[in-house]
């Protein structure tokens, strides 16, 4: 370890034999259940997150299908039927947010890629990593159990006093559905906290020689910023949920005014976590964008330090704006004005990043592989989402748009158009690395177009009808909104086709896909140094650290159908 010979030719062949990688290193179900290998944990997370996404998508299709007719297409005619609709959108939101978007990129992609990209052998606390995963599973099981015994209709935000009093007189186990789901979310919160702790310590303490802070790839910066938020914000969600359970079961009177409590206080508690939570969702996706855009523009990322520090700025500023979810909800005018002003500030670092990505693409050599198609979609969709967020951040405008479909469209643009598109980009970018297989590029591009077009058809009508006053979370609506709803529902079906296509070609690639080279895309980060799939212990000797965005270091090898390090390359002098 003390003698590092820069070896520009060797690109890290597997060291335990030509075909040994993390998948074949050991066999049997016990070797997966008790694994301490971050790569296997990442794969388990990936399977779980994608399953949860499928479940959330089922609820989404039900919600959209209901809204084809003004009087309701599925749940119609009685209050009880509408209350079942309430459960559908609540569960869609809760499953998507807590089981897919928050754990998704850090758990599935971050776990797999972070140590390799950093140059470490594993995360700092592998057993804690496994515990994180099992807390995720436990939380998911509690949530599913709550769904099975009748579900929850409070909205994913669990606002009191409704969440403290609903179903309390119900007969049977169904009356505990709220507590059970809330406890499941509590466990998911701790899964998130432990993941965040692990990543922070890994990045601080496990960097190899030469890997200074400003030599790290930007995906690691974004995961680091995400982890800061996870550690600081999630415990407040934890106590909020515990207090909600106490409120329901013991009637403690903190949030329920019937017993002397303050419902607006619940909202302060809840949004202190849930606003930073949306930055937990978007920051890793932004990190993926930095990697994908640089790689597929064959160009050094523009404004590295700006992007890195913007990630930290977003994390910090994200803690100062939670009241913008509460403008018309009883918050005082004083705080409303303060939060409105601070909300305008938080848009700035995100905008800096978008400009830097565009500048990276300028005069680059664009290669429209599937991850890049998703990256372009991200730039368009996230910009719309972010800008509409600025509309909503203006206090006076929000008074009219709060709880309308405008808000629904806004957050779908940032969460789906931002995080989920980023997740798809990262999934396609690292699929060859994780599985050792290439997927069908043509189908990938077609699916990305289907998802993009379907998404816009789903949500642009929602912006319009939101400004016309269509409220959210309504099972029925006035007939004048029907054209928008029908267009939106058709868009959702197009998206469904797109996602089914993605699932089919990805699964197909596992069996029939061509073997992937070490570096199919020509990236200069350490994760593409090792084999696809990577060996069990990533690096047996610490890797050579160089500029992670110096694309010229790689050259295409037609025999391997991938990129290799250029033996004759002399890197420019770094300032």
């Amino acid at each position, binding site marked *: *370890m*003390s003698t590092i010979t820069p070896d520009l030719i060797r690109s890290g062949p597997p060291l335990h034999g030509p075909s040994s990688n993390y998948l074949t290193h050991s066999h049997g179900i016990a070797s997966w259940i008790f694994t301490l290998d971050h790569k296997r944990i990442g794969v388990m997370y990936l399977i779980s997150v994608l399953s949860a996404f499928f479940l959330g998508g089922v609820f989404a299709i039900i919600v959209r299908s209901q809204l084809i007719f003004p009087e309701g297409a599925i749940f119609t005619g009685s209050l009880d039927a509408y209350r079942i609709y309430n459960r559908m959108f609540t569960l869609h939101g809760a499953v998507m947010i807590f089981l897919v978007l928050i754990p998704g990129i850090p758990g599935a992609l971050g776990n797999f890629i972070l140590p390799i990209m950093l140059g*470490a*052998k*594993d*995360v*700092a*606390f*592998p057993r*804690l990593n496994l515990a994180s995963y099992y807390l995720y599973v436990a939380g998911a099981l509690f949530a599913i159990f709550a769904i099975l015994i009748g579900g929850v209709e409070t909205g994913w935000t669990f606002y009191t006093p409704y969440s403290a009093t609903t179903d309390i007189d119900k007969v049977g186990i169904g009356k505990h559905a709220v507590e059970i789901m809330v406890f499941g979310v509590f466990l998911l919160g701790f899964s998130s*906290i432990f993941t*965040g*702790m*692990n990543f*922070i*310590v890994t990045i*601080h*303490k*496990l960097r190899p020689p030469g890997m200074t802070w400003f030599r790290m790839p930007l995906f690691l910066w974004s995961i680091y910023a995400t982890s800061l938020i996870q*550690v*600081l914000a*999630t*415990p*407040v969600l*934890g*106590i*909020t949920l*515990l*207090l909600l359970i*106490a409120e329901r079961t*013991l*009637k*403690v*009177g*903190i949030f329920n*005014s*019937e*017993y*002397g*409590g*303050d419902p607006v*206080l619940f909202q*302060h*508690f809840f949004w202190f976590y849930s606003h930073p939570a949306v930055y937990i969702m978007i920051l890793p996706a932004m990190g993926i964008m930095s990697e994908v855009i640089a790689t597929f523009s064959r160009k050094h990322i523009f404004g590295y330090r700006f992007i890195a520090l913007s990630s930290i700025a977003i994390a910090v500023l994200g803690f100062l704006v939670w009241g913008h979810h509460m403008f018309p909800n009883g918050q005082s005018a004083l705080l409303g004005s303060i939060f409105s002003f601070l909300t305008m500030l938080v848009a700035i670092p995100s905008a800096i990043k978008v400009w830097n990505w565009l500048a990276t693409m300028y005069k680059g050599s664009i290669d429209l592989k599937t991850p890049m198609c998703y990256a372009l979609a991200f730039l368009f969709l996230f910009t719309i989402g972010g800008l509409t967020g600025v509309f909503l951040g203006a206090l006076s405008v929000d008074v009219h748009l709060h709880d309308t479909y405008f808000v629904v469209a806004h957050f779908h643009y940032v969460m789906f158009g931002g995080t989920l598109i980023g997740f798809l980009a990262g999934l396609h970018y690292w699929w060859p690395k994780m599985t050792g297989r290439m997927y069908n590029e043509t189908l990938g591009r077609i699916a990305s177009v289907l998802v993009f077009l379907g998404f816009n058809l789903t949500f642009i009508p929602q912006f319009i009808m939101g400004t016309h006053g269509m409220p959210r979370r309504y099972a029925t609506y006035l007939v004048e909104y029907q054209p928008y709803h029908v267009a939106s529902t058709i868009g959702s079906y197009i998206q469904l086709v797109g996602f089914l296509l993605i699932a089919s070609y990805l699964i197909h690639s596992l069996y029939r896909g061509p073997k992937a080279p070490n570096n199919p895309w020509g990236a200069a980060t350490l994760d593409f140094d090792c084999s696809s799939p990577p060996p069990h*212990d990533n690096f047996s000797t610490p890797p050579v650290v160089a500029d992670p965005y110096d694309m010229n270091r790689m050259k295409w090898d037609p025999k391997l159908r991938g990129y290799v390090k250029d033996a004759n390359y002399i890197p420019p002098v770094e300032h």
Partner: protein
Amino acid sequence: MSTIPNDYPSALPDPNAPHDEHDHPSFLAHHFESAQQQFDAGKLGIWLFLTTEILLFSGLFCAYAVYRANHPEVFEFAHLYLNKWWGATNTVVLIFSSLTMAWAVRAAQLGQKKLLVNLLAVTLLCGLAFMVIKTIEYKDKIHHGTLFSVFYKPVQLPHGVTAENLLGPADALTAPPAIDAPEVHTAPAGYAQQQSKIPLAAVGPAGLSPSFEPRASADGATSLDHENPWVGPEPRNVAVFFSIYFLMTGLHGIHVLAGMAVILWILIRSAKGEFGPHYYNPVDFVGLYWHVVDLVWIFLFPLLYLIH
């Protein structure tokens, strides 16, 4: 530096030395390059965890702050039910246990195995003493009916409050209905507009209680002091104080119990000789957790017991 017992190697391995594959100390995990790295990583990890614990309690401190700022009379009245000497004793017990825990870390660093085991045992006993006192306090509350929310049915007045200090309601607006009374849909007796169907926000349906200053006692004395800690009618929603009290001390108590369990585990490992100058990380990290438990109590004590 005290004497190193003779059951430890005379030459301590250099914690900064990189290890080979063959010379891997059993306590050093494979993904770490050196013992120093493992210690630093573990330390940062436990500090991050303690951050999350402090933020978990911060929610309760926020509920306390918000409620106390808006309804100070509830706190000034209800805290008189608490016995500050039990609270002070618990404070002393926990601070002493922090001392023994910090000393235990020192003992581990110096390889003083017997001292380490004894100090951990004392820490554990202090934790036990804390929980015993807590149990006494809780049983006292149950006995006196001063529990949270709907279970608040006090059988006596708090310390220092006499029946004559508790004046009857001077006007109907401050009359405290019982917390589980049916909803008030008509204005209470004494209010001028008898036909109003709009419930007053101030008194119902069981809304937030109005805040007011305790008024002068019957003989005109207006200042509160130790003999007269409270003058005026019993405030509404006193049960919320006890909700906050039980939630805060309850969550703290759960953390004390968890801490005791972990200290017991460390105690057993220390008795087996697993710790010494070369490796004492778990003792250090468990110690840090225990100090945070103490820190939380250092704030809980004045905030709950010593309200003026």
